[in-house]
């Protein structure tokens, strides 16, 4: 009964979504307030039924209901319960349901907070969100029903979850990523609502900005988690592979980053309005496109995902409908929201424009690299291979230019700056970065590597520029502490995120340029030196896991004769799929990771062992964390809640203070 209940709830959610996409919208054009506010309760209903449906699927997994096809192919009775839970989104159907749950969840939050918006805007935003979820709900119902039964012949036991996904990182990675992807749907809905109303003022940007930033934070964290997972679970020691699936998440991140910057200009200066709208549309479109890429099978033949042209066709039709319609709307309505404010060539506006151009170009580069094989093939020009070489040669220089522009942009004021000011501010910083970068290049490692020296120079450049800007901003205060206290959270958030960029640069440059690695045959008792560490192989022991058997190597690591740690890299064989898996042994450290993976037994107790020393590799993810935290800090700024408090004040007067406490509490949330 339970799976049927889940399906039924999903159908009900679809009906509510249909209503949500029509009723509030019609209300906003005919001025019917009740129709407009219906959007909120519809969004709530949709969320509740989707949640119910998702719970049914989780329940089916937890109770090993192998009569459900999706459960049978993605779970097994031996699977630990925590992985039974996460297996819910381990395959196409379930992850799609999670996607929808996230979408309706965002819709619910928007609905809760939409009473602060002008009623027409709120109604339209909710309607657009309704339309987005109708598409996905129909997609899951028509092509990918997760509740399909294997009756009358259910299997005895399930096929087990892919061992690669039996991991804690995988538990939070997809939800994070979806929060990001789907969060951009809210930014998109705001953009479409603005186009419908033909109005885009700074109040609009103040509403739209926090949503976009929060979505961006989630996406940042999600991508970082994915990269972290690849690093320790795939056992290759790499952290980014330019795989189409990774690219699918990187593209919306790049255009989303452009969007949050462009939104800043729109809010502060009332500029770049149509550009901001276009970016909002593009960012969400790229999120949709990522879904298409991963699930359609367009690139399947090259990479391992379930291929299904029917699903692909559905998403493509949906993509054409959603994006095509919004771009058409954009083309007709954008002239209404043009701004006529000017700014001089040397100003923060220009530098943000540079930032946007670079980000959009790198996004286009990634898109081209991902799609190129297909394009060339479609034009019948033969076949060409595109891989990391292409991406690295194009993407890395652009990232570096971006970091350079960041330093300049931070120093410039809005509207108008002068060359002499810029030179005066930045000359010492520039000099210090050049000297620092060159000195680093000569001192670190065996030989001078230009790209690493350049990267470290840019790190110094960005960090010093941040410090200098903070100094400038606090100079006039009575003392440093008072000055720092005056700066707003949004300012700190911005600088923290920018600092995160510098930190990530350190991680990327150091781990790419100065990693040490050795593949070697080791007998028990053998010691191998790598860098300043000595690795001693103490043999192998057998481990019995819940659903796997493993050989765990014992490797003691010494530095200057002192024991640093003991690592236990494992080689597992999962029982059901018979799939061998490597679990690397990692000793994480602030300045270096020691990374050990176990290979094959080579007879007589000796094993193939792979040893890595990866300097500063953790900075990659640390930087990403700073970026995400910076974004959250920026959102916490009071100015996004000012309006709301004012309103709360008025309301509390009329209600004679009865609900004042409640409103204030709401304002704090």
């Amino acid at each position, binding site marked *: 009964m339970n799976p049927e209940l889940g399906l039924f709830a999903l159908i009900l959610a679809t009906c509510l979504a249909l209503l949500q996409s029509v009723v509030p919208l019609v209300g906003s054009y005919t001025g019917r307030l009740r129709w407009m506010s219906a959007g909120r309760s519809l969004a709530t209903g949709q969320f509740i039924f989707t949640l119910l449906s998702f719970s049914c699927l989780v329940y089916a997994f937890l109770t090993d209901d192998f009569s459900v096809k999706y459960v049978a192919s993605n779970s097994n009775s031996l699977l630990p319960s925590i992985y039974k839970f996460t297996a819910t989104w381990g395959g196409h159907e379930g992850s799609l349901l999670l996607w929808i749950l996230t979408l309706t969840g965002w819709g619910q939050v928007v609905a809760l907070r939409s009473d602060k918006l002008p009623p027409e805007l709120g109604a339209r935003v909710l309607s657009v969100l309704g339309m987005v979820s109708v598409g996905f709900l129909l997609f899951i119902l028509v092509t990918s029903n997760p509740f399909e039964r294997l009756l009358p012949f259910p299997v005895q036991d399930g096929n087990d979850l892919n061992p690669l996904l039996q991991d804690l990182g995988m538990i939070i990675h997809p939800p994070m990523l979806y929060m990001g992807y789907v969060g951009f749907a809210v930014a998109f809905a705001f953009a479409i609502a603005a186009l419908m109303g033909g109005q885009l003022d700074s109040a609009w940007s103040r509403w739209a900005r926090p949503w976009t930033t929060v979505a961006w934070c989630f996406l940042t964290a999600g991508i970082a988690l994915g990269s972290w997972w690849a690093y320790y679970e795939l056992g290759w020691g790499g952290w980014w592979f330019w795989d189409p699936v990774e690219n699918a998440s990187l593209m919306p991140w790049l255009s989303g980053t452009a969007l949050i910057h462009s939104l800043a200009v729109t809010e502060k200066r009332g500029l770049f309005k149509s550009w901001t709208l*276009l970016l909002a549309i593009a960012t969400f479109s790229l999120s949709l496109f990522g879904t*298409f890429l991963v699930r359609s099978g367009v690139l399947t033949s090259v990479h*391992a995902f379930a291929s299904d042209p029917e699903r692909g*066709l559905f998403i493509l039709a949906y993509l054409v409908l959603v994006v095509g319609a919004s*771009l058409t709307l*954009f083309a007709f309505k954008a002239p209404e929201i043009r701004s006529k404010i000017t700014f001089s060539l040397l100003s923060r506006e220009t530098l943000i424009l540079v930032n946007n151009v670079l980000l959009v170009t790198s996004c286009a580069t990634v898109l081209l690299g991902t799609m190129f094989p297909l394009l060339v*093939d479609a034009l019948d020009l033969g*076949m060409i291979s595109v891989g990391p070489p292409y991406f690295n040669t194009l993407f890395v220089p652009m990232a570096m230019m971006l970091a350079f522009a960041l330093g300049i942009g931070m120093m410039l004021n809005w509207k108008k700056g002068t060359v002499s000011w810029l030179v005066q501010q930045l000359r010492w910083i520039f000099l210090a970065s050049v000297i620092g970068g060159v000195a680093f290049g000569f001192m670190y490692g065996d030989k001078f590597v230009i790209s690493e020296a350049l990267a470290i120079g840019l790190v110094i450049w960005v960090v010093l520029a941040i410090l200098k800007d903070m100094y400038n901003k606090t100079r006039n205060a009575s003392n440093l502490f008072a000055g720092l206290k005056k700066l707003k959270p949004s300012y700190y958030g911005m600088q923290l995120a920018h600092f995160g960029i510098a930190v990530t640069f350190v991680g990327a440059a150091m781990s790419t340029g100065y990693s040490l690695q050795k593949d070697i045959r080791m007998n028990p008792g053998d010691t191998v030196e790598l860098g300043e560490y000595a690795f001693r192989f103490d043999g192998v022991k057998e481990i019995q896991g819940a659903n796997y058997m493993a050989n765990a190597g014992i490797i003691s690591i010494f530095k200057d004769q002192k024991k640093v740690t003991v690592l236990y890299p494992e080689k597992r064989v999962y029982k059901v799929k018979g799939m061998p898996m490597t679990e690397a042994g990692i000793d994480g450290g602030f300045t270096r990771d020691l990374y050990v993976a176990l290979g*094959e037994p080579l007879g007589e107790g000796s094993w193939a062992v792979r040893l890595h020393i990866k300097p500063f590799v953790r900075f990659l993810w640390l930087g990403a964390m700073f970026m995400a935290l910076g974004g959250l800090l920026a959102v916490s700024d009071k100015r996004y809640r000012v309006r709301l408090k004012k309103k709360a004040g008025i309301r509390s007067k009329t209600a004679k203070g009865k609900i004042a406490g409640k409103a204030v509490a709401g304002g704090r949330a």
Partner: protein
Amino acid sequence: MSRVEEKGKKSRLKLFVPLAFFMTFCILLYVGLFMESKKELPSALLNDPVPEFSLPTLKKPTETVTQADLKGQVYLLNVWGSWCPACKVEHPYLVKLAKKGVRIIGLSYKDEDADALRWLQRLDDPYEFNIVDKEGRLGVNLGVYGAPETFLVDKNGIIRYKHVGIVDPRVWVEILKPKYERLQKDAIQ
């Protein structure tokens, strides 16, 4: 007045650029979706000999092989890399095929030798030997655009078929096996 209007019109047209771009893009995706049959080798390379090369082998890096060394028997040329997740999925089936006696020669494509060797140690080795194409030059000449890809080559070194993507039981039984067996029969005659 008219000039102003004209200017307005022009800038309005500009706003349709994103839409036009997007629509073109979608057409490409649509074509891609139904390109399954076209994913076979383009006619340019089909029935051509394997391009010339002289590259080291994986397990004996000091020795080099050329296209001439491969002739004499029908074989599958499998392009793979340890960086390629799909290859990992494909690999067990290749091992099975090799055990059945199918001759498979590997092309270690844009990979680090150490990674590739470790892979073979860990997952078993179905290859007669592996050609190391670190820079991917042979790959480009072959028209490889990703991994895994598998070429069916006859005893005279002529490419007869190319499969893009994973070779699984379905692909083998439905597509490759009939061709492979026919070529083998031809080879005997």
